[in-house]
């Protein structure tokens, strides 16, 4: 993640180290996908150069552009970041003044052939101002010294009406009262798009509870690297605040040495609970998993489902529930055969599916899985990954052995 305040005035040079000038402004498309299309450069002899973004190679201590480049002119629907967005008044949908744009956050998208920047949101908090004044980290350290944590206040791009922006207003599509701080899940999504250094930097300034929620929403790779890098005491304090099952997932993902260090610092009661869960997890669910299950999209009708059953489940050894997924293949609902048969042939499944899904993860100890199945009287329980995508199911048949051993 980049902030405009951090790149404004950055040196621009070509790949063979010829200095061109300094970054003055960015040009972006006023749309739902606010791609940065051009750079405005103040050249060494004070001339203004507008450079198409496709010539940008990378950004480090300076912005590197290709050796050969052409200049450009503005096209329709393009706006200047600094001139048209930064420092402007933000109003909500009914015209109440809310705050000004203190900074703009950008995100790099890197693939083999493409290098692109997108605007991701506007910083409307105190940090945006402090960052421009170059005293952000000083302030954060001071606050931390007094034990105060302030959450950054970002408005995601999705809240801003692009059409109004072209008319010179920074207008939101919501009323002020409905505008809450970014939800932890959204922030986690947002952070996953940036690199780990930024994630760490970001989490450092968050309020502990909020940070813990954000951490638990990150994917396991991020979680692993965070806990591998953090001081053990910091890790421990975050662990205490997130759900024990999730904490175990994370602990199992990091090195054993590190795990011991962290666990050692966790508060006694939580520590015992986590230890227990870890020991249970050695009897993991992995070998109990079956991939014999049926998923359907939520717009399938009963009729569609029945033909899908006929087509796909002929060789299933066990069949009790049908799982509903969305476009991202995430599990969003479930229903059993009885419920299916009770509805008309043309009823779509989303009308009757159960959305409150009981699920487990790969790292869930088998004992907990069994407990859940017994408690909710489930013939099978779905196993999902961190993105809520279904990996398989654990059926009652497969845990019967385990139960009889315990009895």
């Amino acid at each position, binding site marked *: 993640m980049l902030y405009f305040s951090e790149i404004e005035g950055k040196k621009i040079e070509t790949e063979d180290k010829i200095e061109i000038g300094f970054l003055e402004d960015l040009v972006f498309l006023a749309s739902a996908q606010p791609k940065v299309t051009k750079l405005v450069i103040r050249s060494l002899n004070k001339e203004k150069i507008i450079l198409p973004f496709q010539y940008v190679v990378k950004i480090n201590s300076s912005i590197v552009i290709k050796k050969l480049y052409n200049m450009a002119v503005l096209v329709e629907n393009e706006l200047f970041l600094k001139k048209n967005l930064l420092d402007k008044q933000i109003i909500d949908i009914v015209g109440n*003044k*809310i705050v*000004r744009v203190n900074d703009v956050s950008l995100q790099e998208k890197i693939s083999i052939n493409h290098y692109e920047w997108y605007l991701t949101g506007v910083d409307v908090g105190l940090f945006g101002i402090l960052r421009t*004044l170059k005293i952000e980290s000083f302030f954060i350290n001071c606050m931390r010294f007094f034990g105060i944590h302030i959450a950054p206040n970002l408005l995601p791009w999705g809240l801003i009406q692009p059409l109004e922006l072209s008319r010179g207003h920074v207008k939101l599509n919501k009323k002020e009262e409905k505008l809450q701080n970014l939800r932890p899940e959204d922030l986690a999504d947002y952070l996953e798009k940036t690199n780990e250094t930024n994630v760490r930097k970001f989490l450092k300034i968050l309020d502990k509870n909020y940070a813990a929620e954000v951490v638990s929403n990150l994917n396991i790779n991020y979680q692993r690297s965070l806990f591998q890098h953090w001081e053990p005491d910091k890790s421990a304090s975050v662990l205490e605040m997130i759900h024990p099952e999730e904490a175990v997932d994370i602990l199992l993902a990091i090195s054993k040495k590190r795990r011991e260090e962290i666990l050692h610092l966790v508060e006694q009661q939580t520590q015992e609970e986590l230890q227990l869960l870890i020991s249970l997890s050695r009897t993991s669910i992995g070998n109990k998993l079956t991939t014999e299950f049926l998923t359907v999209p939520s717009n399938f009708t009963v009729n569609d489902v029945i033909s899908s059953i006929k087509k796909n489940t002929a060789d299933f050894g066990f069949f009790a529930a049908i799982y509903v997924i969305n476009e991202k293949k995430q599990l969003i609902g479930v229903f059993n055969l009885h419920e299916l048969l009770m509805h008309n042939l043309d009823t779509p499944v989303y009308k009757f599916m159960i959305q409150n899904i009981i699920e487990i993860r790969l790292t869930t100890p088998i004992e907990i899985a069994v407990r859940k199945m017994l408690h909710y009287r489930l013939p099978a329980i779905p196993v999902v990954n961190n993105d809520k995508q279904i990996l398989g199911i654990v059926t009652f048949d497969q845990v019967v052995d385990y139960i009889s051993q315990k009895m």
Partner: protein
Amino acid sequence: MSTQEHSSTQSVLFSFKTRLLIFFSIFGPATITAMADNDAAGVATYSLVGAKFGYSMLFILLIITFLLAITQEMGVRIAIVTGKGLGDIIRERYGVTMSVFVFVGLFIANTGTVIANLSAIKITAGMFNINSTFFLICIITIATIFIIKGNYKTNQNIFLLSGFFYLTYIVSAFKARPDWNLAISSVFIPQNMHFSKEFIFAAIAVLGTTITPWGQFFVHSYVLDKKIKIDDLKYTQIETYFGAFLTDFFSFFMIVATASTLYAHKISLVSGEQAALAIKPFAGELASVLFGFGILNAGFMGLVVVSLTTAYAFSEFFGVEGSLDKSFGKSKTFYIIFIMQLLIAALIVNIPSVSLFRIVFFTQSLNGILLPAMFFFLLTASNNKDMMGKYINSKWYNYIAIISSIVIIIAAMFTVISNVLGLSNIGG
């Protein structure tokens, strides 16, 4: 007389009536700002220079009236044409760094001004045997209630009522039985002026108490909050000139009241607030009480208007809702800044070890630093064709505005430099 003539006379009459109505509908902001420029600190300064230099200072008033009219008019015009406050303009054109610096400077300087007003109230209340702490608490509570609860119109009317009480100075001045011929002629023809170091400092102090950064901010924001339409711009301009005249009309009587008593009898004042008691032997009980009441009233007006300026400026710089017409819930930050400004000043004024003299000194210097910046913003904005369109400064007006600004800036720099070097001794 033919019918046609008759009807045209009527239409002239009618349109005069309409114009008068429009004038009264837009009347308020510039006059109130002008009145508030004569806050308690202002009254103290006028009393002091009146006592020390007599009528000779009156000629300076004429110049100040002119400067005030020109500078306030620019602010009012920019506000009505662009629909933006001075804070909005600074933020959008010069970015967040400049905004933070100007706001912090303004906040500190305004705290100083509010402190000066609070302490004037305190001293005056003390002289009339009123429990000053209790009185301060009452005044702050009342100010807070009517700012939060009242809308723009209520507040404007309270300010105007408060402005009405400035008439007390006229009574005090008449009771002092001055030499009216000399007084009035001193305004237009410099008389008995001695360009000593003290005189120059005093003149600059008078200028500095009338033309202030907060005054520029306030008139801008307050006109904006009234939501005056661009069609009525010329009425507001007339009001601005009227307001500038009114400020110094009252200043004239303040100076006359002390000049004809204290200066005439060679009695020196330690501080301006004592003027109310000091004129008693010469002007009588009524004049003294009215003068004291005038200071209380001016102090009240000053502390409310200056705190309000801080709140307006914050809202503009940082883009939160800030209007007297919005409820507390809708404009929370605005009202909280107002209350904070008052409370911080009230807290400092009640610390016994704090030297008021130093605070006033420091405030003067800070205002002196801020003023040049203010005029830079005003002049660049009022000369910006994109923002102002056809309402841009005309060529001659611009020359006058630039010369006025330079005079004010030189005076301001003079204050700063001499304060830093420790040359000035006015107010002591």
